[in-house]
């Protein structure tokens, strides 16, 4: 059986149990699984464990260790998961967890007389689960799945009619799920997405429920496990989209029909282009970069993008590459302007030939064809884009991104027109270094996990690993923000490590590429030395394919730069090569601000 996977738009092949068992088993001699998942449920977990291990193996290349609790005690299992947290927690709730009378393994009565009592019990149990979830989510990320199986035939109405009792039960659960979705760290499995991949009528295995306490068909267990792994260990969202114009952003060929006749509305049978524009506008509002690659006349495009009825604002489109050269060359220039890699970008064009040409030049880029002649397929495309760009939260930095990229053009022009020292001196730059460990703040982990170039070692953390790192009393975290006359960049760097007996050890240090050429990295180390009172810092350094900016910075202090391993930098050696830095510094320690005026601060800088 196959179901459509909305993220890849390809049918998801059902993983047979025999295949899952092979995947779930670690190869002989393999080290113990480094990732663990608590499976919190009230039923016998049986094959769901195997499928979680198998999909974990597919995601990471190694099986995931799955912890399970006690049959029939979902609340108790939540307490166990909180007491001994794993890297992630999957909570799978079914009706019998809320009242055993709603399951098939109990026969304590389905008369109308007990319905009030069942309803009260369900509400009581949901209240209890709500507070337990809160507790677990403070220790590890949680994927929560509401009841996936139907209620037993308990209502007094005919099959086609919902009874008020059933509706009240479902409403209570929906209200609980909506509340739970507000808890930081808890993410709800989409019932709609699950239904697209696992038909409701094909989920329950009554024989297995009665014989073993495992309620799912293998196909349902497979889909559920795959989605839980996706929720708990999501892929990094894409950062940017490059779109074509003719017959993609709008209907019609601009050069043939002119600016006034291109369309994206119902009256002109071009609504699917309008929906696409509307979707792009929503992406832009969440900080996704939008660029244009079009074979067209630049003047005409300028005029077309100035039309006031365009649903995506022209100011959110940057850069705009309009020429008659190959699309791949335009894409290359856009990537350079953005300074991001092709793997972080989606390319959309109505011409399969153009998508193939770009895909051949950038195999890591996701290239999608716009369905200009088939509006039915538009929703598939938009769902696919939602999957690729989906993120847990929208941060202030996301909103700043496009504006700061535009400003970077002016920044570069000015930078090249004068000496570096003079240029930095007139920026009016303020660097804020905040020392605080905030598990509720997603930005530091986001930076660590998506920064490639200025990156100490390429190390990535799962959310669970990050939470455990922050909970370590020996750990320290500094988050760096930057602002100058060109505007704020937001929080653009993170340095974190562990205080050791000999010296603090930096385990991760990253800085966004938008913040290069400002000497923020010097201030960062200076403040870390000062805040930790350290005379030496050790670094878990490892060269990667892309961390040349970090290597370039380190090469000022280490000659030659070792190929890999721990680097020790003394404060004296650092200060010896510390350049003149005309920035104002603010430091924040656990929420309390204090201005810092290192000896290098120039007069007149705020």
């Amino acid at each position: 059986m196959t179901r459509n996977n909305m993220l890849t738009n390809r049918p998801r092949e059902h993983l047979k149990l025999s295949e899952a068992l092979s995947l779930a088993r670690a190869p002989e001699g393999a080290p113990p699984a480094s990732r663990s998942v608590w499976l919190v449920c009230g039923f016998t977990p049986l094959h769901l464990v195997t499928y979680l291990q198998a999909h974990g193996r597919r995601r990471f290349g190694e099986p995931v260790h799955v912890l399970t609790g006690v049959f029939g005690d979902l609340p108790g299992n939540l307490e166990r998961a909180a007491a001994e947290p794993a890297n992630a927690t999957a909570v799978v709730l079914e009706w019998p967890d809320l009242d055993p009378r709603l399951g098939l393994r109990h026969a304590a009565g389905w008369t109308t007389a007990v319905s009030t009592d069942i309803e009260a019990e369900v509400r009581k149990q949901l209240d209890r689960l709500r507070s337990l979830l809160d507790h677990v989510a403070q220790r590890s990320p949680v994927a929560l799945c509401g009841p996936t199986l139907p209620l037993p035939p308990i209502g007094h109405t005919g099959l086609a009619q919902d009874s008020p009792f059933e509706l009240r039960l479902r409403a209570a659960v929906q209200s609980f799920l909506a509340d739970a979705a507000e808890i930081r760290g808890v993410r709800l499995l989409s019932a709609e997405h699950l239904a697209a991949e696992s038909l409701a009528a094909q989920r329950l295995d009554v024989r297995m429920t009665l014989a073993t306490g495992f309620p799912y068909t293998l196909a349902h267990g497979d889909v559920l496990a795959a989605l839980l792994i996706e929720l708990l260990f999501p892929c990094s969202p894409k950062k940017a989209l490059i779109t074509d114009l003719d017959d993609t952003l709008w209907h019609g060929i601009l050069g043939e029909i002119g600016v006034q006749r291109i369309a994206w509305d119902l009256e002109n049978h071009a609504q699917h282009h309008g929906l696409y524009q509307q979707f792009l506008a929503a992406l832009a509002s969440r900080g996704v970069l939008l660029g244009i690659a079009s074979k067209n006349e630049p003047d005409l495009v300028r005029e077309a993008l100035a039309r006031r009825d365009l649903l995506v604002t022209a100011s959110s489109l940057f850069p705009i590459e309009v020429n008659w050269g190959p699309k791949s060359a335009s894409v290359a220039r856009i990537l350079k302007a953005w300074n991001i890699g092709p793997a972080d970008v989606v390319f959309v064009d109505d011409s399969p030939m153009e998508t193939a040409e770009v895909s051949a030049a950038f195999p890591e880029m996701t290239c999608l064809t716009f369905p200009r002649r088939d509006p039915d397929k538009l929703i598939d495309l938009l769902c696919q884009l939602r999957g690729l760009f989906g993120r847990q939260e929208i941060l202030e930095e996301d909103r700043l991104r496009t504006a700061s990229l535009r400003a970077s053009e002016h920044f570069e022009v000015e930078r090249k027109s004068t000496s570096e020292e003079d240029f930095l001196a007139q920026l009016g730059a303020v660097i804020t270094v905040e020392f605080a460990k905030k598990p509720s703040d997603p930005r530091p982990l986001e930076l660590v996990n998506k920064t490639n170039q200025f990156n100490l070692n390429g190390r990535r953390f799962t959310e669970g690993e990050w939470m455990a790192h922050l909970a370590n009393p020996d750990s320290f975290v500094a988050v760096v923000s930057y602002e100058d006359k060109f505007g704020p960049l937001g929080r653009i760097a993170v340095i974190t490590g562990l205080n050791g007996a000999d010296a603090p050890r930096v385990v991760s240090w990253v800085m966004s590429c938008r913040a290069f050429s400002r000497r923020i990295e010097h201030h960062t180390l200076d403040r870390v030395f000062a805040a930790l009172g350290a005379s030496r810092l050790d670094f878990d350094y490892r060269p990667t394919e892309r961390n040349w900016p970090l290597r370039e910075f380190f090469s000022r202090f280490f000659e030659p730069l070792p190929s890999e391993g721990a680097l020790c930098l003394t404060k004296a050696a650092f200060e010896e090569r510390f350049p003149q830095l005309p920035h104002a510094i603010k430091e924040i320690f656990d929420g309390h601000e204090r201005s810092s005026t290192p000896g290098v601060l120039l007069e007149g800088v705020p």
Partner: protein
Amino acid sequence: MDTNEVRLQECFSKVFPEIGPEAIRNSSIDTIPAWDSVASVTLLMLVQEEFGVVPDMDRFEEFTSFRGLLDYIRETSPNA
């Protein structure tokens, strides 16, 4: 050894990877310590998946040895 026997042996190998082919063919719930209730259920699901046969739980005693399961499959499976 017919194809059913080979296919069933494959099912057993998935559940008991540490047991060799010869030992599998002579195995029963008494000879494999790891053959617990979870292994039994997994084995029966694999048989269902491989042979398209839904094991009749009233005949559970027959499913406690390789030979017993093989005989049951030969008797009932549309794919055997």
